């Protein structure tokens, strides 16, 4: 029986599958910025020409591969870099995926699976902890469980001789500590982690009328708040008035009952019309989640570089003392972020620059608008500011 979203009982709506991606970026900007290349193990990371050459020799040593190997976020990469020549991949600042299978013994959950991926950029590492919750619970219990996983050490891990439980942030931290000596060598430390970015998606649940709009302040609205605000007492916290609209990420041609609900560092996807059991293509939401997570991680990486490059420009300085590869990366990032952000005027033209388009990515970039505009104006030909 199909329930409407207005009458939906979150305590009884059965959720069969949910996904949670926790995205972290480990900045190592100092190494790239230095004109004297540090003696790291994988020198290619700090040299654009060497990095570009790596694309041609992948997979390499069973450790590094192209980021879409394994199929995660395939659609994102396909649209982001339609031409996959090495020089084009470099122009897209496409990272290299580092295989953790030989390093991580196991990571998992009692009621789901956990997958950790690392993406190597010249200026740092992107770490993606992807949780697949596969258990039938009422919607409220699913939200509580996802909160547990995000906020508490719920993930069992086994790396080398060590084992324990960690939250996604803790697991990412552990992976960083393990990988730094392996990739860069001893004695190198990373900059501070930024706040993790989460993407939560209910991928399968009982049938819900997706043409029925989500009521403001209703139980479903609280669920969305719970999966983006990550507050333990989410059920008793009344969402702010108008937040359903203000947190709605713009989406083209979405049914009234679909929403990507977003805050500055989190997204929740509620697409009942695409649940596995009702969709024509069962993996629709799963793929959407992966693509959104991958796009979010790559955008996060580019924004970190943009913020770092913009800092001296904002202070009236320049990138004079930065290495050639840093300057090259900063300039490419300025262009790529503009392309990912898109322009309102692009919506009416057919030959818009090919890339992955997402309202979520656009909203994510908007938070770094000043820095991005700074480097676009300072480093690009025709580096026009981003649309508001």
């Amino acid at each position, binding site marked *: 029986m199909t329930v409407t979203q207005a009458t939906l009982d979150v305590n009884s709506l059965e959720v069969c599958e949910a996904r949670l991606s926790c995205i972290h970026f480990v900045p190592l900007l100092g190494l790239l910025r230095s004109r004297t290349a540090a003696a790291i193990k994988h020198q290619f990371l700090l040299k654009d*020409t060497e990095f570009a050459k790596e694309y041609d020799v992948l997979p390499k040593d069973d450790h590094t591969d192209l980021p879409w190997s394994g199929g995660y976020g395939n659609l994102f990469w396909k649209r982001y870099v339609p031409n996959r020549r090495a020089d084009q991949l470099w122009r897209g600042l496409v990272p290299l995926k580092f295989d953790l299978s030989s390093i991580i013994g196991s990571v998992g959950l009692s009621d789901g699976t956990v997958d950790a991926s690392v993406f190597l950029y010249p200026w740092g590492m992107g770490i993606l902890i992807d949780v697949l919750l596969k258990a039938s619970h009422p919607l409220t219990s699913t939200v509580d469980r996802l909160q547990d996983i995000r906020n508490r050490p719920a993930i069992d891990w086994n790396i080398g001789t060590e084992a324990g439980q960690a939250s996604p942030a803790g697991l990412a931290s552990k992976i960083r500590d393990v990988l730094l000596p392996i990739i860069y060598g001893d004695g190198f430390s990373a900059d501070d982690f930024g706040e993790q970015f989460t993407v939560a998606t209910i991928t399968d649940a009982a049938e819900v009328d997706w043409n029925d709009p989500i009521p403001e302040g209703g139980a479903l609205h609280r669920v969305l708040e719970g999966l983006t605000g990550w507050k333990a007492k989410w059920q008793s916290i009344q969402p702010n008035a108008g937040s359903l609209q203000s947190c709605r990420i713009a989406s083209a041609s979405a049914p009234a009952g679909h929403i990507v609900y977003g805050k500055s560092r989190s997204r929740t996807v509620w697409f009942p019309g695409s649940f596995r059991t009702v969709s024509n293509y069962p993996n629709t939401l799963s793929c959407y989640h992966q693509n959104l997570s991958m796009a979010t991680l790559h955008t996060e990486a580019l924004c970190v570089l943009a913020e770092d490059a913009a800092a001296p420009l904002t202070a009236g300085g320049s990138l*004079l003392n930065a*290495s050639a590869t840093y300057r090259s990366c900063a300039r490419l990032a300025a262009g790529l972020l503009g392309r990912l952000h898109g322009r309102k005027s692009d919506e009416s033209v057919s030959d818009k620059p090919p890339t992955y388009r997402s309202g979520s990515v656009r909203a994510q970039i908007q938070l770094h608008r000043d820095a991005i505009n700074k480097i676009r104006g300072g480093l690009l030909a*025709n580096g026009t500011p981003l649309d508001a």
Partner: protein
Amino acid sequence: MLRTIRVLRALQIILRLLSMTAVVGGRPVLAQTLEVHPSPVNGAMAGFKARTEIVLRNDTVDKLTNVSLSATSNDGIMISIDSAKSDIPAKGDQSFTTTLTVPPTAHLPGVVLFRASYKSSDLQKSIYATLDVKTDGPAKPVEVTLDASADPISQQRPGTLLLQVTNNLDVDVLVTATAQQLSDMSVDRIDAWTVAPHSVTAKTMAERPNFRVTPGIHNVAVDVNAQWTRDGMEGRRQFTLSKPVTVGVFFESELLHALGIPSFLTLPGCLCLFTIQLLLSTGVLGVKNQSNLPSLSVTSPGFWILSMSLSAIFLFTYWAITGVNCLITYGVMDMGIMWTAGIFVGAALFLAYGAWRKDWIREHVITSSDSPSDVLRKMSRNRMQLQRSVVTFQINGANARGFTLENIEDAQTMVWVAPHISVDWYIGPTQEEQDRANEDQTLFNDIVNGDRSLIRLVALFEKPASPATLKFDSTPAVPKPLHLKLEAITGTAADDLIVS
């Protein structure tokens, strides 16, 4: 009886005494007076003659005997008296006609003293009267004015003097006028003419400056002689009138005013520099692209030091060749020659400099049509660094920025700026092309990360079949090199690499 006679006689004496007294008790007393008519005499001058009537009146009851008239003058005036001695009865009078003659040696105005001598009551007596002899009366007999236009005159634009004669007399006046000749100009002669009584006539006299003149104000003097005859007496006046006249060279003042030059003497030097500046502005031979050329504006001391020095050379050379000392006199032809020579020498100097520096300019001086590789090559030859200062400026009201391509020195007014130059690496389909691109890009990175040598960088880009493509980019910036006035610079930004 005798006593009576004595009394009568005494009374008679008393009456005589009373008659000789001028005024007694407020009542007029009878006496002799000497009158001069006319008095005074006006219009005296050398050769002047006049008649006067001297009247001796006897208002007494006594007869005057042996009456005679004499005259004397300390001013050299000659007097002739036409009457002899005679008697004047009681209550009678006698006139004496005298003629005054003013010799050239006489002193005017003068005084003539007349003395009438007579015997009365057996007593010899004299009475005196004076006559003033004056040169002019209240109205001058002849008046002359000289006028001329205030505009400068030149050989091509002669001027005229206007001589106006006013005859206040009631007889014709014959006038002759002659101008005193000057070294820089001549004034045409005019024939003598007659001015009717109580009339005014004017005559023009053409002023003709010479071929070469000393420009400035000259005083033209005209001698005027007026003669007339009245009652057989000749009258004459001699005038010398002067008038300042501005003499110049045709078109000189207009020319100097248009060019803003204070004197003809600085004309050739100024024209020489103006010609150089004109050729500079046209971009001939690319000389104007040099930023370190002195500006030499007309208001700068350097301009005048140079132009005056050049002018001195011009004037000396001209004097040596033609013998004409333009410091003293010159004419329109001299001005034309100086004009032509100034322009010719200026053009010759410019072209000589341009030809001499042609190769150097082509290899070192930035132009607005330079490609990015041209800019880098010239910067390298000028021993510039890859790291350049960045300036912000306004162009067409919009903010822009650019890398300075030169080191700015004192007194420099312009500087070349250019946008950032980006390098695109062409990575061909073949392995060989890819390897070459990779190799060059690696070398580029080594240079940027290392010593940032522009010489090495240029050598890298100039390799045959280099995979590097250079292009100007970065906004807001000018699309290509721009020769920017320093005054347009609004600020500076941090130094940066011009190529990356």
